[in-house]
């Protein structure tokens, strides 16, 4: 579904992504792991066109490198940014409506269904997004992207700063997304959630891919975890 080959990206003169190659297949959950500053977020931003990419990025057999963000989103690639970016003056319901694409009226998700999955959000449907808790905002942000009915979704650090109970809800939602045939690229720092739900994992270090494997193989690779993941 997503094929990234020899991807480079720069912030000014800093060479952030130094030729990374990876792929995500249909319906797969793939995690992108690594410590802070190794280029994980830059990778998804480059794929979405927020950072100028160099190299090849193919989505559904179509080159998307250099396309505008809204064109990429309309091809069916969803993106949940790390900072959540909830629209603070719009209600939770309006935030969800914003994610809808008029061309996909009958997608996999509906506002009512989202509210039935997350009663907390339903209770606060008419409340401004800016006053929701961090966990509610994270759920809302993920669900807002789902409203556009993407075929693949890239989620950047969805559990960052959340309480363990909310992390569990996030994990359940990720599983539900995968159950509906949506491929997931999960950018994470926490090992346990990635190990629990991923089909495959990539580990990044210094702007490069340093490891590719399954959760089971990563658990065996003590030296990889020690060098590139553990603090």
């Amino acid at each position: 579904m997503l094929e990234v080959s020899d991807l480079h990206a720069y912030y000014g003169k800093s060479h952030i992504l130094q030729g990374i190659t990876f792929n995500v297949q249909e319906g797969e959950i793939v995690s992108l792991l690594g410590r802070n500053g190794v280029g994980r977020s830059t990778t998804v931003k480059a794929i979405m066109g927020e950072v100028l990419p160099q190299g090849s990025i193919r989505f559904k057999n179509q080159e998307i490198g250099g396309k505008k963000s809204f064109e990429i989103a309309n091809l069916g690639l969803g993106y949940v940014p790390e900072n959540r970016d909830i629209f603070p003056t719009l209600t939770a319901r309006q935030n969800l409506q914003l994610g809808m694409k008029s061309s996909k009226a009958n997608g996999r998700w509906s506002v009512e269904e989202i509210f039935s999955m997350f009663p907390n959000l339903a209770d606060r449907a008419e409340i401004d997004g800016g006053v929701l808790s961090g966990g509610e905002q994270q759920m809302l942000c993920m669900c807002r992207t789902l409203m556009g009915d993407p075929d693949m979704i890239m989620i950047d650090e969805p559990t960052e700063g959340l309480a363990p109970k909310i992390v569990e809800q996030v994990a359940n939602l990720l599983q539900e997304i995968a159950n509906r045939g949506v491929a997931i690229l999960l950018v994470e720092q926490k090992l346990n959630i990635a190990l629990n739900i991923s089909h495959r994992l990539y580990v990044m270090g210094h702007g490069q891919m340093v490891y590719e494997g399954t959760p089971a193989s990563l658990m065996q690779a003590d030296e990889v975890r020690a060098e590139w993941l553990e603090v």
Partner: protein
Amino acid sequence: MLEVFIFATLNGLVTGLLLFMLASGLTLIFSMMGVLNFAHASFYMLGAYFAYSISLYLGFWAGLIFAPLIVGVLGALVERYGLRRVHQSGHVAELVFTFGMAFLIEEAVQFFWGPDTKNYQSPDLLDFPLFTLFGQEFPAYRGFMIGISISIFIGLYYLLTRSRVGIIIQAAITHPHTVANLGHNVPFIFMGVFGVGTALAGIAGVIAGPILTTFPGMAVVLGSIVFVIVVIGGLGSLVGAFIASLLIGLLQSYAIASDVGVQDLLNVLGLEFDRNHPLTDLWTLTLPQVAPILPFLLLVLVLIFRPTGLMGKREQ
């Protein structure tokens, strides 16, 4: 006295709502792009001139429909092929660009339509008194101006706060990248807002042209007051622009209708004035004479006591 007050209020409403049509477009554009469009009043002038030309062949009502559309399309083209390119060079370049556009449009108007005042008339259909009060007639055309302005305010408010398009616009103002990531074409939205904003100015020109006269200086006359309104209302606030427009319209109207002078105020305070005093011209000033500077006086007061404007969001 009562009839003076009532008619001053009605005329103030007409002026205020007309100013709001201009100020609303300017506010919308500022909210989205963060740039004050100095050429905004020039689009108002273009609306009047296009409507005048159309009315010569197809009548007033055709002008009311087509002139704002033409102005809106022109505005959208200016954004797409001018402002969007200049945007990369920063806000100062944008300001200079819109300033240049204002001059360009004024020169173009003089080139195509000439420097004289045009005989742009209100429609015969509305050439009757809407009502007569205390022996004074209130023209139906002014009632029409009030009706159309209020309809636009309600329509715009509904569009921006209740419709899906409005939600997207509101979100794109503060989070353009996030909105783009959700699949919305933000540059196209910006172009549309600029087009709608200039079309609103065009409508104001169409309906103001027959009353305020259609001449090449009409943009300059109203342009500065519109900027005063958006600053008093609070940059970026549509409700603020509405309140400030009515405030300025009523303030000027009451001032013009009154016959109070500085001399009267001095008399109330029990002060006498010397007719041979060097400042005698100041003592004999009347409120109708100072009416044109009242908006600017109000601007200074607002900037001193409430720099963000009445409903300003500048600090956010």
